């Protein structure tokens, strides 16, 4: 885990226990004139602690976060990964910052003189590629970019390949980088939580006063199918659906679609119910309401945990949410928990995580 407020799984566990949120005033770029001024940013991350300087020069910020998280995950699993290991990474926006930097050079120096190194890093799968090169992983290598459900979709793909036997193990995760372009655009469209009258700026999942989510960044990776340590848990089943009432860039209004995906995940896992739901809720008006209605229909009275107020939204958040749920099977002694990812545009992916093997 390379998360806002936590580097490493122990620190992340501590963050979750503490009840703190890792959201702070943005000081990396200017937010003057915007409605929102806070984000869940990764501090105290020193890429050189994880990646040799020579290699670091060839990686953009997104790749550095992902490679560092992968290094921690591989060390934690305790095994040397076989070359037959696949990589599946989710990122909602990918290397936006690199594209911006490329276009700056393009404007300043001309289309013929922009730096090729920036172009090579401008593809969304650059982080996955660096991970494959660093550890010699020759299995599948895929980068999923399905908005808020990117990380869970990556987990579903990788788990499918593992049960199919296409690879021996997989590195699964998500990565996202906050930057001025992304922040200002999300702010302009009113997606970000903001202060309003007496209300301070914070993501308030499921709260009637909510007015948006907090942008997060970082990377979380997990190793599936290999390792010498006791497993944190098992990816037990997945469900996928789409809300046909959703417009292209917002959440829809049909909770039955979410119910369908949750039921499908339970069915895939072969379980009747779960002990808790790690909700997709991030503080957005429509998304949270949709999920609330769906959970009330299928799991009335079950504990619902909304973690994205702690470390923010998007693919890093999706992967951190997955890891938070894995930790909960141990901490809370939950047998099965459900993780939801509900995207603007209507995409829904749900995953059942089990404490023990089926």
């Amino acid at each position: 885990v390379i998360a806002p407020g936590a580097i490493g799984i122990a620190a992340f566990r501590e963050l979750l226990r503490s009840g703190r949120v890792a959201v702070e005033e943005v000081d990396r770029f200017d937010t003057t004139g915007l409605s929102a001024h806070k984000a869940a940013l990764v501090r105290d991350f020193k890429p050189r602690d994880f990646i040799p300087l020579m290699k670091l020069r060839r990686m953009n910020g997104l790749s550095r976060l992902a490679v560092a998280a992968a290094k921690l995950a591989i060390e934690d699993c305790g095994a040397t990964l076989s070359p037959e290991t696949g990589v599946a990474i989710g990122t909602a926006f990918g290397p936006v910052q690199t594209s911006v930097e490329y276009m700056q050079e393009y404007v300043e120096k001309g289309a013929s003189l922009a730096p090729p190194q920036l172009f090579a890093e401008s593809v969304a799968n650059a982080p996955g590629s660096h991970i494959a090169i660093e550890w010699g992983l020759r299995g599948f290598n895929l980068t999923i970019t399905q908005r808020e459900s990117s990380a869970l979709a990556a987990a579903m793909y990788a788990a499918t390949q593992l049960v199919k036997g296409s690879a021996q193990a997989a590195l699964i995760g998500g990565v996202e980088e906050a930057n001025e372009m992304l922040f200002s655009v999300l702010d302009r469209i009113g997606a970000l939580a903001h202060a309003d009258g007496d209300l301070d700026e914070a993501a308030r999942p499921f709260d009637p006063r909510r007015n948006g989510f907090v942008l997060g960044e970082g990377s979380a990776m997990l190793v599936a199918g290999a390792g010498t340590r006791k497993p944190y848990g098992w990816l037990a089943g997945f469900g996928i659906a789409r809300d046909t009432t959703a417009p292209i860039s917002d959440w829809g209004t049909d909770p039955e679609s979410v119910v369908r995906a949750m039921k499908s995940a339970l069915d895939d896992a072969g379980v009747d119910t779960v002990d808790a739901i790690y909700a997709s809720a991030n503080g957005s008006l429509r998304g949270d309401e949709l999920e609330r209605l769906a959970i009330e229909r299928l799991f009335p009275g079950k504990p619902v945990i909304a973690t994205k107020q702690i470390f923010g939204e998007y693919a890093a958040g999706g992967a951190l949410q997955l890891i938070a749920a894995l930790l909960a099977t141990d901490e809370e002694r939950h047998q099965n928990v459900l993780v939801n990812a509900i995207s603007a545009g209507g995409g829904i992916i749900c995953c059942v995580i089990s404490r023990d093997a089926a």
Partner: protein
Amino acid sequence: MRSPDLSTRIAVTGTGIVCSIGRNKEEVWQAIVESRAGIGKLTRFPGETFPTDLAAESNAELPAGRRLSRTDQLAILAAREAVAQAGDIPLARAVVSSGTSTGGLLEGEDYYFRRIVRGRRRAPASRVLQQPTSGPSDAVAAAFRLGGGVISNATACASAGAAIGMAADYLRSGHADVAIAGGSDALCRLTYSGFNVLQAVDPEPCSPFGAQRKGITLGEGAGYLVLERWDDAIARGATILAELSGYGASCDAHHPTAPAEDGHGAEAAMRRALAEGKMTPASVDYVNAHGTGTALNDAAETRAIIAALGTDVPVSSSKSYFGHTLGASGAVEAVVTVLALQHQIAPPTLRLHESAAECSLDYIPHTPRPMKMTNVLSNTFGFGGSNVSLLFKRA
């Protein structure tokens, strides 16, 4: 969790395509049999100067829609053709799986330029909303009201191949009943400039596997397949166009942009596709190659094909017709591959006047070749060393 049941056969019941040689598959196939390429002067970015000036642009009239990028529009056009051909499919249980390299970056660039001129507060954010690489899948899902799910991947030029393979897996595991799978990419300045600064663009129309090849020709387009479980397709009386019998994916783990010179990753992808389809190397009748026209790719892919399949299999590159459609290429070329199976005609490699010394296979030069084909492979490889090979079987 349920594993994809590999004994479940996957039927292709619809195909759709748009690229520089046609707005639909009839036009595309007509151009292919007439050996007519669609490569001309770049017109999309007037006033801007690049080291090379050729492109394979689509002239299709695109479906209008608020907040649709050009990439999204190309996707809807191709998906519409595929869905129409498939007929009465259960859209409420249909998943869409798309690959794209840049999504709506073209519109993102417009936003970026406006920001430079007008400042952050006065540039219309609606333009940049079109940028996410989830755009093609989101747009296709919305256009056809698909209820089964929506997945996007941006795995550079291997994207659409991966999108198709993944969709087949979800049909086989019962996570969806029908899939609309493919990819889309519109030309944008960043890729046009980027491949030029990498010196990977041929100043002449690309000549894959040729002795004089100097790189790719950049193109744009979209391709989609409708996939169903074979028994479902039969049960509803659908016309089956081909079978998607295998999907193989691998990574070179070698270099961010260059392929491994020995072709080991490409070889592994082809071997995995064959293993999934339970086919022997000798049973492959034709390979629709990735064949970009770069010195490294064509040599490495040739080595990979020889290692995986031997030296007898005919190979060609459709990119000699419509350039490299980047993230869409896996789907655009999968549609061409299915058309080749249906017509029992292998498309040629155009402008292959002399094969390079390191390219020693039969590349079907100049003119289409009528031949008996049962099992064919479609290769697609990308930046980051990602490789995908799809195995199709004649229906």
